[in-house]
């Protein structure tokens, strides 16, 4: 009997104060349709809450969404919180209205990938497949 390969679990979260949840919901649905296990936390999550959820759900990936302009503060705060909780095996990606210069800076600070408006959903799925080639989807 082949060993069961664990499906990739992704916690998708809205950090910050804005309530623009169109993008996050579309992405959550697309990832679910692509066979990933998706847990959407809902709105206004603090970095601590996001990491709590990821640990509780035993997730390998955290996907963050923000449209308020606070990404330079909140995305790195999630990465730092993961370090503090010794959970750096969980990878972080994000999306939202994020200017190019900020993307470079965020990647330096430990955010693996940033997807901006206009990104085809398939591109996000392809990135995850490349990042977790060994893991099965549901």
């Amino acid at each position: 009997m082949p060993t069961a390969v664990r499906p990739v679990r992704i916690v998708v979260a809205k950090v910050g104060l804005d309530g623009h949840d169109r993008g996050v919901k579309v992405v959550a649905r697309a990832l679910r349709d692509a066979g990933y296990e998706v847990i959407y936390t809902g709105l206004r999550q603090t970095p601590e809450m996001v990491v709590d959820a990821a640990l509780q759900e035993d997730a390998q990936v955290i996907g963050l969404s923000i449209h308020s302009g606070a990404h330079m503060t909140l995305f790195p705060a999630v990465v730092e919180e993961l370090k503090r909780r010794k959970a750096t095996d969980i990878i972080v990606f994000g999306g939202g209205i994020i200017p190019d210069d900020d993307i470079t800076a965020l990647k330096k600070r430990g955010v693996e990938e940033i997807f901006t408006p206009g990104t085809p959903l398939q591109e996000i799925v392809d990135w995850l497949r490349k990042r977790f080639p060994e893991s099965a989807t549901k």
Partner: protein
Amino acid sequence: MKVRARDAKEAWREEFESSPARDDGIETSTISGIPLEPLYTSADLPRRAEEYPGQFPYTRGIHPSGYRGRLWTMRQFSGFATAEETNRRYKYLLANGQTGLSVAFDMPTLMGQDSDAPTSRGEVGHCGVAIDSLADMETLFEGIPLADITTSMTINSPAAILLCMYIAVAEEQGVPASKLGGTLQNDILKEFIAQKEFIFPPAPSMRLVVDSIEYCAKEVPKWNTISISGYHIREAGSTAAQELAFTLADGMAYVDACLERGMHIDDFASRLSFFFDAHIDFFEEIAKFRAARRIWARWMRERYGAQQERSWKLRFHTQTAGVSLTAQQPELNIARTAVEALAAVLGGTQSLHTNAMDEVLALPTDKAARLALRTQQLLAYETGVASTIDPLGGSYFVEALTDEMERQAEAYFKRIEEIGGVIPAIEVGFFQKEIADAAFRYQQELEQKRRIVVGVNEFTNADEESIEILRIDPRLESEQAERISEVRRKRDQAKCSNALDRLRRAAAGTDNLMPYILDAVRAYATEGEIMHTMVEVFGTYTETAVV
């Protein structure tokens, strides 16, 4: 004659069907998915008496003189960083011919918390201007005479507080509340449905809305107490018909709540205003605006029994669709915005915000903000479109589409009624699900290239040039926190605490809260302190997320 007309139509139909059709796979339905005929004829015209502007049911406009009497108000939504910087931007826009102000607040202000709250970290001054107390509001309107200008404030959960701050600043300028003109967004239902900037649960939220409507009916009679908004519903992904239906349903829910309070329909109905999106599908938008007026007039007169004509007239502000803008080849956004703005004008809007081309990346620079305003001026003064009232009235296509919008909206009203009304429908996630489904469907159409967005999924540039964007200085956060400390140090603490205590007791009772909030504002209580006082009594709301 009739026989010959039918022959001609059949001949056209035969020729149309035998002509080769484009095979690019692109949808011919509207962006909302309404199937369209290739041609509309007199057979599609509804059979009804001729309609005139200024006459019930106002399909052709609420003013008999259209834009010949008065152009729409060019009202650019603006605010960023500190009150001081935004005050400078307002003076700049007014000097460039803008005719009204529209305040954009930052996220902490919108969420009723002070700039020095832990969860305000990284958010201060980013999406709008940071306002923490009356002191900031005084700075925001310094040198701008509030008697001579109308101001729109996009604020919802804490709307009552910001209105009180505005009233207090006016008092200091020697302008009585009775002379103030402007609009408060104050539309909490669409927050639960789409924009999600709710704080209190629905019932106390509605109480605050009705309190402000009731208070203004007596004390600030020229103020538009609420701007019932479809914009956010549409931007969250709804179709045009959903935007129309959900917004008007919200409007009726506010009317019901005011009637329940014991107010008379004609005492408040004329101060209700609306706010719609102007999306990129040109004719569908025009039909939506025309249908909105007709539906509202009918409901107000026939269902609610309003006697005064002014209670029947739906007045609205329009903003071009932020969601239609692209980060790719951003200069194209000027063209998109111009088309959308034209739809709003042909739809008879009372006021208009045109988005700046860089708003998809950040808050607009001075130059981008000026170009957006100039686009409106170009429409108003160069194109001639303001010379004729409802120029598309009588168009076979636009009239048929107007009727279709109306039909779809009425079908939604029935479904909402079956669920038990707007608030129960929010609580079961009805609107949220409808909107998420529509957003997902549209995204799939884009992925399959059944819809094209230029520069995004077709006609892309390999090398994107980056444009200059506005940056918010991160030092602003600590500076704003320092300003709050100063306000707290300088104010009469006993007076402030007493005002908050009185507010707390009133919130637990049934009094109209506006006078209590006004007292707290005058005593320089911060927005966060006032909200916190009400949260102690009302509690907060958490939604069950619908994916």
